[in-house]
């Protein structure tokens, strides 16, 4: 421990210091020393360092701090009997010290935080908008044949981000179909309106549930993968390497991913429709005694084709949003490991949020148009 004893004479206070004066044993020492000096009410303090066992730079800095503190109260401080090592460290901490150093992280007030957050949201929004614009300009150039399409990358992405997602989407939608049908079955039975389960399932799954859930799964699975993969490529300077080779970032990384999702999203939604309805059909059969044949027959009469198209048409729009946000977040990764985590998380959260907003807009638009 860092210890000291007080010896007061008429004019001065002597502090005999002993023990370990190092970074692990300094806690609160400056305060205790200051307290002792103030309570003794002397104008002169002498520190005797002869018996100190260990004295490191932290202790040296602490003593110089104390000296400044006492000086501001008009108390003079002297050091005596410092051993050679202690003297060396005192000298070093005096010449190399920076009393005014402040490295504590600034904490912003609530208003400033809100302001900074708002600015960053606007920045991100403009950034993503610009990014989507640039991507479509490149896409247009590919369509009219000014730039080559990277077929290999495109097909690879179709497999990675869509085909490999089929099973998880199928399973999820099957279970959602089961759950929705099961819950409605109880209600419908009390009214004897068993057959209407087909109308209900058909419209809700085709129009809303399957596009929405497919988008959420793709955002969580493929959108986050885009962000993480491109983010790491940025960190390892692979993106810079591609640039120096003259490989266009958009043609190699962005367009294949975006196009793969645009093409595959409607297919995934169609797949989700089938499995959702299959789940519903199973429950309708076991709970409400509606045979699959009856289910099909009623489906043909009650559920118009437009509901299917309304669901499907949302696919490419959701795809653009998910892919753009995922890739944009990946490119927004800075040179540190933490920003990969932050940007991957944000890619998923933002994509799901935007997809829900977009879905709400579709609902309003389709209803107004009479679909």
């Amino acid at each position, binding site marked *: 421990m860092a210890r000291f004893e007080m010896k007061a004479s008429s004019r001065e206070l002597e502090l005999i210091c002993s023990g370990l004066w*190092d970074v692990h044993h300094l806690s609160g020492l400056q305060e205790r020393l200051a307290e002792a000096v103030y309570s003794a009410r002397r104008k002169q303090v002498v520190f005797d360092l002869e018996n100190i066992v260990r004295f490191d*730079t932290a202790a040296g800095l602490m003593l110089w*701090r104390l000296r400044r503190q006492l000086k501001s109260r008009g108390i003079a401080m002297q050091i005596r009997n410092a051993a050679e090592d202690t003297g060396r460290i005192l000298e070093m901490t005096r010449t*190399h010290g*920076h009393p005014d150093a402040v490295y504590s992280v600034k904490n912003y007030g609530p208003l400033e935080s809100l302001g900074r957050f708002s600015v960053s949201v606007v920045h991100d929004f403009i950034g993503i908008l610009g990014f989507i614009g640039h991507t479509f300009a490149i896409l247009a150039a590919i369509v009219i044949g000014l730039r080559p399409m990277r077929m290999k990358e495109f097909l690879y992405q179709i497999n990675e981000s869509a085909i490999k997602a089929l099973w998880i989407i199928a399973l999820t939608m099957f279970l959602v179909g089961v759950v929705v049908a099961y819950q409605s079955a109880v209600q419908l039975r009390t009214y004897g309106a068993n057959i209407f389960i087909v109308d209900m399932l058909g419209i809700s799954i085709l129009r809303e549930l399957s596009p929405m859930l497919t988008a959420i799964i793709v955002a969580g699975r493929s959108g986050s993968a885009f962000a993480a993969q491109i983010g790491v490529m940025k960190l390892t300077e692979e993106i810079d390497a591609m640039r120096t080779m003259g490989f266009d970032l958009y043609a190699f990384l962005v367009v294949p991913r975006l196009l793969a999702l645009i093409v595959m999203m409607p297919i995934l939604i169609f797949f989700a429709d089938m499995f959702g309805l299959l789940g519903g059909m199973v429950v309708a059969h076991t709970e409400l005694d509606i045979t699959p044949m009856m289910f099909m027959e009623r489906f043909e009469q009650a559920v118009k084709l437009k509901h299917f198209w309304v669901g499907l048409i949302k696919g490419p729009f959701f795809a653009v949003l998910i892919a753009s946000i995922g890739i944009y977040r990946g490119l927004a990764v800075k040179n*540190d490991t933490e*920003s990969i985590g932050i940007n991957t998380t944000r890619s998923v959260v933002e994509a799901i949020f935007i997809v829900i907003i977009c879905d709400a807009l579709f609902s309003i638009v389709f209803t107004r148009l009479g679909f």
Partner: protein
Amino acid sequence: MAKRIIEVKDVVTRFGDRTVHDHISLHVDAGEIYGFLGPSGCGKSTLMREIILLEPLQEGMIRIFGEDICGLDHDEAQALRRRWGVLFQSNALFTSLSVAENVSVMLKEYTTLSARLIDEIVALKLDIVGLKQGDGLLYPSQISGGMKKKAALARALALDPELLFLDEPTSGLDPISAREFDALILKLRDMLQLSIVMVTHDLASIEGTLDRMAIIDERRIAAEGTLEEVREVDSPFIRTFFGGELT
């Protein structure tokens, strides 16, 4: 006789069938700058990792500050770790923290000093390694390779260790920065009375900084001693390395 700060005795290390160290013994005295040299793949870094408790010791004995590193319990190992600082070859700065935060991270974790005093300690450490005060606010991605080395060195010195381990400190630096770094190591040794152990390939820093060295070649210590003593030893690696003659 000077106090022995590290003692390595009959250390054997095997990876699968491959023997890396075959009964290696050496010792480092307090206050000296000691180097591990040898061809690449000879197990210099592995030996250092065994000493700093990153790799388990397979066979033999290592004493550090007089304590046998076998059979340390968790608290003893932690206490021992705080007595040395390590500068890794790739610096291993925490990229999500600023330079100042990198230096202060141990101080904040292991001490209860006031924030102002910690800031002053950080400022001192940045100053003695030759960084400017403003550099503390920058992030590792914003500074040059030489500055990263210095920042990592400042971090290794955060708790005023008695012993410093440097893994190829001058690799990846340009010759001028490398010589500056050597001078810095010498200055810090005198200033803080450090003992330093380094793994190095850099001939200029071997000549300029090392007091003694061990050459590990063919799984054994080919030579140990001062530069003059080592040069006298007849071994293919030493001839190639110091004689500039290619085998």
